[in-house]
């Protein structure tokens, strides 16, 4: 079986491993995806005749909790990678599993809180079609939630399948965890902007 090149050694022309450059270029495209949603928000809100008081419609306490949850998951994610990365501390696959498991748990908690929020809106007859603000709210947080779900799927795969590759190609596996971490931190950064824009402004 042909092994992918440049997963552990850098390319001479870029000075990076291919996955490292790849994930950053992918995130650049994701910036434009979420950027288009944020600028749509700016256009629609500044052009609207009236706009609801966002913090009265949405739950700021729940969103603050979700912000803390997602930031915590970013910390556990980077600690999961630190447990495998080459460096002064000894590598510890058991610690990787612990922190990756915690990252998954926190991701699930984030989605659970979002499900509670959505359910509460629907119970009060508030749907995406109700007004422009809610359309933007559901679309932006919905697209973000799908990104959280996909990130969790990748993280779950790494947690479950990691032991085998850690035994045979540890550096390649550590790099995989790092790349998944970069994606996960990006999902956190998007929420860091969604929270004030949709809930606080």
């Amino acid at each position: 079986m042909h092994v992918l090149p440049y997963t552990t050694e850098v390319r001479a022309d870029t000075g990076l491993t291919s996955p490292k450059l790849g994930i950053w270029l992918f995130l650049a495209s994701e910036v434009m995806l979420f950027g288009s949603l944020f600028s749509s928000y700016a256009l629609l809100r500044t052009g609207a005749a009236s706009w609801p008081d966002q913090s009265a419609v949405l739950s700021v306490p729940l969103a603050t909790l979700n912000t803390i949850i997602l930031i915590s998951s970013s910390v556990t994610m980077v600690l999961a990678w630190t447990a495998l990365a080459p460096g002064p501390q000894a590598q510890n696959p058991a610690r990787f599993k612990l922190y990756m498991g915690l990252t998954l748990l926190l991701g699930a908690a984030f989605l659970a809180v979002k499900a509670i929020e959505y359910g509460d809106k629907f119970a009060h007859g508030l749907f995406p079609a109700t007004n422009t603000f809610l359309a933007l709210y559901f679309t932006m947080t919905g697209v973000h939630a799908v990104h959280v779900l996909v990130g969790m799927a990748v993280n779950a795969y790494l947690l479950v399948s990691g032991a085998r590759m850690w035994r045979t190609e540890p550096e390649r596996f550590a790099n995989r965890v790092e790349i998944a971490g970069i994606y996960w931190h990006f999902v956190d950064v998007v929420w860091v902007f969604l929270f004030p824009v949709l809930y606080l402004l």
Partner: protein
Amino acid sequence: MTPARFYIGIFGALVALTLITVLVSSLQLPTAPRVVFGLAVAGAKASLIVLFFMHLKSEREMVFWPLALTAFLFVFLLAFVLWSEADHIVGPTLGS
């Protein structure tokens, strides 16, 4: 300082910034300072995550320049949106 302790320190800063932004939003400031402050705090939090959790601070230039271009293009996009609405941007929709 061990890496773990450093990351926990960044986490503490992120939590503090989150609490600050929620508290300030409850003060019901006028529009312009509210928007500027909210986005500034969000930008600070995002910078901490990108520079330290994503290791961009120690990353090669090859990564930095595509991102810088992306940031510029996004600001460009947003600027055109705001420019097209500039004549009535501070209106009923953004509060007082």
